[in-house]
């Protein structure tokens, strides 16, 4: 059976959930080979990848790989594509991994499909386009299919793989060292699940009114074990950090449940959350377009409705 390369997403040495989703998907397409790029590899990471089906784990954990923007990871994958001749390469549809996929496509003379929500027979990818309005089936016609898959699109299933480790040495070329990362600035993150990976997202918009008042959004999120998101109006106002922005120019999320409080539902916001399975809207304006999407809506003041909902959830636990 051909290998299917899966580029591992990891933060602080922890494997992210989307990688387990990709391994689950890869098992249906061939023999999953996880590719670890950058420092932080550990026995714990290895166990996790094997638990979800990695037959092989390629490890390239030199700092060179992450000291420069994107290009070294594309070189690493290109090297593995040429040595392992995989049936496909899967990456998460995150901003950076899509860029890696794009450069890899050029290096290997292969097609690339972005934002797949599923992969079927013959490596045909399902894409949901135009803000969820149209479903497309597409395929790569030249080279090794490179497919970027959206987080939260695949239910995770464990199924042990051999997890055979193989160290890979890459000599990062000078050409790939053009853009050097000289500093990484981490903004506060907290203990909540990551936005794109979370099963539940609670977002606040202009209706929240102030940075301080975002605490009612956070409390509701914490009662549900959810991530917090924000509309652009809220991030522009400085009420919530930009990396939590949901929408066209923020994150695309597809959680099981999305709660929008004080968000009107502008097209650019919808582009980032429309594929959520269940949507709840809380807004004082009955005409707000967000209600067109909502499975359940409450017309009312979020300052009343949100805390009451948080209390109710606590009572029912």
């Amino acid at each position, binding site marked *: 059976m051909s290998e299917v390369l899966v580029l591992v997403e990891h933060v602080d040495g922890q494997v992210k959930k989307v990688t387990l989703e990709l391994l689950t998907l890869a098992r249906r397409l061939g023999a999953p080979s996880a590719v670890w790029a950058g420092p932080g590899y550990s026995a714990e990471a290895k166990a996790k990848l094997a638990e979800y089906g990695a037959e092989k784990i390629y490890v390239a954990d030199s700092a060179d790989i992450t000291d420069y*923007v*994107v*290009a070294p990871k594309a070189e690493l994958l290109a090297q593995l594509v040429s040595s392992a001749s995989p049936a496909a390469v899967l990456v998460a549809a*995150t*901003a950076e991994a*899509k*860029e890696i*996929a*794009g*450069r890899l496509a*050029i290096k290997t*003379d*292969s*097609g*690339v499909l*972005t*934002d797949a929500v599923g992969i079927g027979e013959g490596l*045909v990818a399902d894409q949901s386009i*135009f803000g969820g*309005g*149209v*479903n*497309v*089936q*597409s395929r*790569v*016609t030249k080279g090794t299919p490179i497919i970027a898959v959206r987080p939260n699109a695949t239910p995770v299933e464990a199924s042990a793989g051999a997890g055979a480790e193989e160290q890979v040495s890459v000599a990062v070329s000078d050409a790939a060292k*053009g853009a050097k*990362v*000289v500093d*990484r*600035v981490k903004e506060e993150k907290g203990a909540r699940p990551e936005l794109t990976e979370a099963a*539940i997202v609670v977002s606040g918009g202009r209706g929240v009114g102030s940075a301080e008042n975002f605490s009612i959004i956070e409390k509701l999120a914490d009662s*549900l074990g959810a991530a917090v998101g924000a509309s652009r109006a809220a991030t522009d106002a400085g009420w919530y950090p*930009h*990396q939590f922005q949901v929408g066209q*120019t923020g994150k695309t999320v597809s959680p099981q449940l999305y709660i929008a409080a004080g968000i009107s539902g502008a097209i*650019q916001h919808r*582009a980032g959350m429309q594929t959520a399975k*269940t*949507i*709840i809207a*809380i807004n004082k304006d009955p005409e707000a377009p967000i*209600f067109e*999407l*909502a*499975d*359940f*809506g*409450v*017309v*009312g003041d979020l300052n*009343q*409705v*949100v805390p*009451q*909902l*948080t209390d*109710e*959830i606590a009572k029912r636990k």
Partner: protein
Amino acid sequence: MNIVVCVKQVPDTATERKLRSDDKTLDRDAADGVVNELDEYAVEEALRLKEAHGGEVTVLTMGPDKASETIRKALAMGADKAVHLVDDALHGSDALGTSYALAQTLKKIGFDLVVLGSESTDARTGVLAAMLAERLGVPQLTFANKVEVNGTSIAIQRVTDYGYDKVEAVLPAVVSVVEKINEPRYPSFKGIMAAKKKPVEKLGVADAEIDVAQVGLAGSWSEVADFAAAPPRAAGTVVKDEGDGGVKAADFLASKKFV
């Protein structure tokens, strides 16, 4: 500094967007064409860099004749001139084909800095800037919310999941911008009038030395096999808060097993 801004015409997101039933490409006649929103931020950043460091801003668009509207808008904002890559052979190009065609054109016209939006609103692949950097063999400075040029050095802040990376490189380079970088100016009346007289050079595939085997629908590395309109979301329930809105929302959550 010779700055080239890549600008794409996209269907207005406020109208219903469709694919064509014949060749499964974007239906450009079904919706009004507008400048891809993030590309206005790219034009603005190019203009600010020119204002600070001198030089010239050239708009580069690949698209059908209709895309000249988009070029006018960028020129009205203040860009100096434009190159319009227009040829029927380019219709249906995928991201690889588009990046190839744009890279060939950029090699032809020359550049110190190429500025793009980080994503289009129609295809949303977000790969073009990285692909151009790869094809041109220059540093990739993408997802920038801040750009600083100092002589031939360039530094950006690259937006990440955890905050941002500070990234440094030497020109020539490719930059893509996010919308937090600036506030695009509106074209002034004077700017709109002046735009009508600014030079727009039209290039075909032969002019830009583009191999037609690598562009268009036939030259693409991927294809759309099939598509269909997504089934509409079933209409939901909307209740008015009468002091029990939170309780009702909790009931709904319980009915869906979220609590």
